[in-house]
């Protein structure tokens, strides 16, 4: 049993290949997280608008992409759009699909954060002569981010895990590399190794998240 799932020879042979996959995974995370955060911030800022005609489309955008399983979105972009003559390739499909999904999650979190900051903060900041944009950037947003920090960290962790879906459209990231190695060797050890790599990589963030969550609950 141990021999089958922890075959060290196979793991050693597969390691360089898996590390190459890990590199692609990290690249995806480094691309999707900042883009998603930026998109989410725009969604959140626009959501505070007083105009219904601005707020409503955003609620629809956020709910639409939160209701859509990310894999379905990815398959639609990767396998559906080429029929319309739009062939994006695996990397661009993944980047666009994950951006749409991730920005709506970040947007919802940041909106909740901005709403959690007392109204008086904005008013007080305005009364000291700051413009609306300055008050938002220097006074409201820092407090908003602090209030929803656990959710932001949690969602970033989810994005890192989400990148494993890219294996379905043959983007050679960590899980894809592991599955190729598994089908070549007829042995599950490469997948076990990939799982170990994911765990070692993400465990510190899970611990951090646990602490943040308990601190927020205890502080209430």
């Amino acid at each position: 049993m141990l021999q089958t799932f922890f075959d060290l020879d196979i793991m050693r042979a597969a390691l360089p290949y898996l590390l190459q996959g890990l590199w692609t995974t990290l690249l995806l995370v480094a691309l999707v997280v900042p883009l998603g955060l930026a998109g989410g911030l725009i969604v959140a800022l626009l959501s505070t608008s007083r105009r219904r005609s601005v707020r409503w489309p955003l609620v629809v955008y956020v709910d639409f992409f939160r209701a859509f399983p990310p894999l379905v979105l990815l398959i639609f972009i990767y396998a559906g759009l080429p029929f319309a003559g739009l062939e994006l390739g695996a990397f661009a499909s993944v980047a666009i699909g994950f951006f749409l999904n991730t920005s709506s999650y970040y947007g919802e979190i940041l909106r909740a954060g901005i709403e959690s900051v007392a109204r008086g903060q904005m008013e007080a900041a305005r009364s000291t002569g700051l413009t609306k944009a300055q008050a938002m950037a220097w006074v409201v947003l820092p407090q908003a981010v602090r209030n929803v920090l656990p959710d932001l960290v949690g969602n970033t962790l989810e994005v890192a895990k989400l990148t494993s879906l890219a294996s379905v459209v043959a983007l050679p990231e960590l899980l894809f590399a592991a599955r190729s190695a598994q089908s070549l060797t007829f042995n599950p050890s490469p997948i076990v190794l990939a799982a170990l790599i994911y765990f070692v990589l993400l465990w510190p963030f899970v611990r951090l998240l646990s602490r943040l969550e308990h601190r927020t609950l205890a502080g209430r």
Partner: protein
Amino acid sequence: MTRWERFLDTFFNVEVMARYLPKIAEGFVVTVELALLVVVSGLALGLLLAVVRTLRVRVLNALIVLYVDLFRALPPLVVIVLVYFGGPAAGWSPSGFVATWLSLAVVLSAFAEEIFWAGILAVPRGQWEAARSTGLGALQTLGWVVLPQAVRMTVPPLTNRTIAITKGTALGSVVAVSEILSSAQTAVSFSFNPSPLTLGAAAYLVLFIPVVMLGRWVETRFAWKR
């Protein structure tokens, strides 16, 4: 044909949609079954683990924390692939349905345990002491006094997490579960037309938009009073 007509013919081809509607409907039923199984077994296992953790047995607690951390760190798709492709090597060949169900249930239970446990910790100690002083046993206190308060607090985070993991049923398509996505993909490759995929996407929206809206409502209804 104008561009617009060609677009409609490609993505909203009524004839193709009508032909594959029964297949997608079958997939819809599989997705709903899978989702219900995952939610019920995942939440039950999570609650059980949280209750075991209140016994504060050192070894058990360390194991539970390890279990929770492990399945919060691993991507669900990795767990599914490991169970489905690794199972046979251990002499156990689960079907794609069983592999997806078990994997998602285990992942949900890890998140649920953490949330229930945080809820139990957030109930003031005085509640335990007061309940015990009225003559209730430890388990009775937990069941009648602490859990009802704890669970109420955990409803909003739990709802969001449950929805997110339920959407993971689409991952079953990777291990040949004939749920919505995989039925739609099969139909696309037979008809050379992406309309079944549009139909599948619509099916997911029909299923999950009410759930997401319910989640929004629950979030305000059970919100913490600050």
